[in-house]
């Protein structure tokens, strides 16, 4: 859909705090409601926000979903994508040949059987021989974070967390909030910018071999607390802006809009697909990273600004050397 190529040198390979000591030392490209672009630093985010504006953040915490299993003599990598119940997960089997009929064997004597297809190909549903806290304990003991090929170092799980993540469940980091430090959040608070939280447990964003999730078939668990819904409505009544930190927040909040166009508290799973034809009603802006051309996250951005303008902005970002992906630079888009 979007034709551009991210050169290798613009793949962020190292977290900012390992390069500059602080996670908030990344760049910020801001696009205002008139589509005019400003190049800035993320630490100067306060210059683009006003007292009374509300930042909505996803406080889902990343779990380590990559597990090693075996079937007979064969080693098989399993990537968990979405929890379905106490002992069932949708998962990607990152391997060409494996049998759906034979149990997968993991460490500690844990087993899993495939009991059906997942929400979309190639996901399958695995039922584990243990469940609840014991299964989570097992996942933490043996799992690794998802590391895509542009990351050369095996960074630990804590590298894939936001500072405020506190509800375990995402298999990939809700990365738009990664650059926030508590110090920056404190600075924004002192300026009168408010914060609120939702949870959306992000599933896998890539199925390997050029296969990408399609949002309509990619349900994700989410919750919008009452306090957050109240703050959003208060903010809008006061004429201030609601800024979603990340596409996961847009997805959750738009899923919680009632027929009167108001955000209300909600909990469940969402299949919502936000793209060019979708009218955003819950938020006035989006803070996000830079996305790959194939990613559905990028399609979501066209609900915030026309595709042509978005592509112009992305061209500019490439020229200016902004960094892509989860450790990369930030992009603020105001409607």
């Amino acid at each position, binding site marked *: 859909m979007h034709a551009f190529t991210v050169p290798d040198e613009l793949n962020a390979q190292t977290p900012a705090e390992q390069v500059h000591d602080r996670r908030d030392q990344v760049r910020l490209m801001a696009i205002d409601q008139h589509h005019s672009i400003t190049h800035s630093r993320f630490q100067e985010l306060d210059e683009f926000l006003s007292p009374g504006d509300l930042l909505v953040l996803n406080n889902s*915490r990343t779990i380590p979903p990559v597990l090693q299993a075996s079937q007979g003599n064969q080693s098989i990598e399993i990537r968990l994508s979405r929890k379905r119940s106490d002992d069932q997960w949708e998962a990607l089997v990152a391997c060409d040949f494996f049998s759906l009929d034979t149990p997968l064997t993991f460490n500690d004597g844990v087993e899993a059987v495939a009991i059906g297809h997942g929400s979309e190909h190639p996901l399958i549903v695995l039922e584990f021989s243990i469940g609840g*806290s014991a299964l*989570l304990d097992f996942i*933490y003991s043996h799992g690794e974070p998802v590391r895509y090929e542009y990351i050369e170092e095996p960074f*630990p799980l*804590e590298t894939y967390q936001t500072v405020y993540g*506190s*509800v*375990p469940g995402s298999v990939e980091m809700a990365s738009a909030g990664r650059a926030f430090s508590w110090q920056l959040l404190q600075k924004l608070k002192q300026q009168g910018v408010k914060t609120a939280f939702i949870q959306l447990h992000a599933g896998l964003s890539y199925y390997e071999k050029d296969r990408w999730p399609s949002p309509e078939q990619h349900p994700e668990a989410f919750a919008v607390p009452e306090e957050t819904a109240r703050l959003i409505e208060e903010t809008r009544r006061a004429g201030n802006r609601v800024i979603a930190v990340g596409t996961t927040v847009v997805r959750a909040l738009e899923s919680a809009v009632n027929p009167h166009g108001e955000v209300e508290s909600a909990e469940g799973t969402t299949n919502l697909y936000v793209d060019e034809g979708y009218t955003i009603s819950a938020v006035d802006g989006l803070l996000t990273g830079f996305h790959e051309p194939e990613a559905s996250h990028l399609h979501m951005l066209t609900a915030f600004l026309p595709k042509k303008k978005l592509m112009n902005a992305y061209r500019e970002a490439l020229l200016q050397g902004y960094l892509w992906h989860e450790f990369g630079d930030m992009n603020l888009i105001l409607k």
Partner: protein
Amino acid sequence: MNKKTAVITGASQGLGKALALAFAKEGYALGICARGEERLKDARREVEQLGAEVAAVQADVTDSKDVERFISIVEDRFGRIDVLINNASTFGPGPTLLADYPAEEFRDVIETNIMNPFLVTKRVLPGMLTRGDGSIINVSSEVGKYGVAEWGAYSVSKFGVEGLSAIWADELEGTGVRINTVDPGEMDTVMHDIALPDCDYELAQPEDVTGVFLHLAASDDNGERYEAQTFDVKGASV
């Protein structure tokens, strides 16, 4: 999910276990951990017998991976953590002059006793800060305030814990999250036997000193230091 949750490290014996039982009696759900699995299982059974829900996780809280696993399991099970008591610590060798103290053991004690409250607090804080509420209690010692011969690296580490509490209390001011320090005083525990093997006077029992912890769990105090054995339930620390 409305039930309050307390997390206690090093909860399989001594003060940690007494605290787990005291908080269970007060209706808290509990997240407890210890390095030794057998003793932890026993503690879990005793807590459950009081009718409390408990997530008991075998974990070494000086290891950030174990801390992540432990706290995430508790958050997943109970949805929130209201109270954290950083109780786990190690004494190192018994009475030893600093001049005789083996350097490796010194390093181990300092790392264990200072890193663990840092790591666990850092991991628990996001949930507390996003809710704007929470109470963290660091267990210190009289020798965290006064230098006493032969208390070695343990004493030095507790001076560090007191500093950690003081700095964090200042940084958390106004957030709704409180951090305080408790000196439980001398108690009849395995650790005390190691510190003072020839002790010939009567000692308090761990269950006698839990009142101040229950008080701090619910109070607005921040940056305070309480001595458990002179604590008055009416709120005064002598």
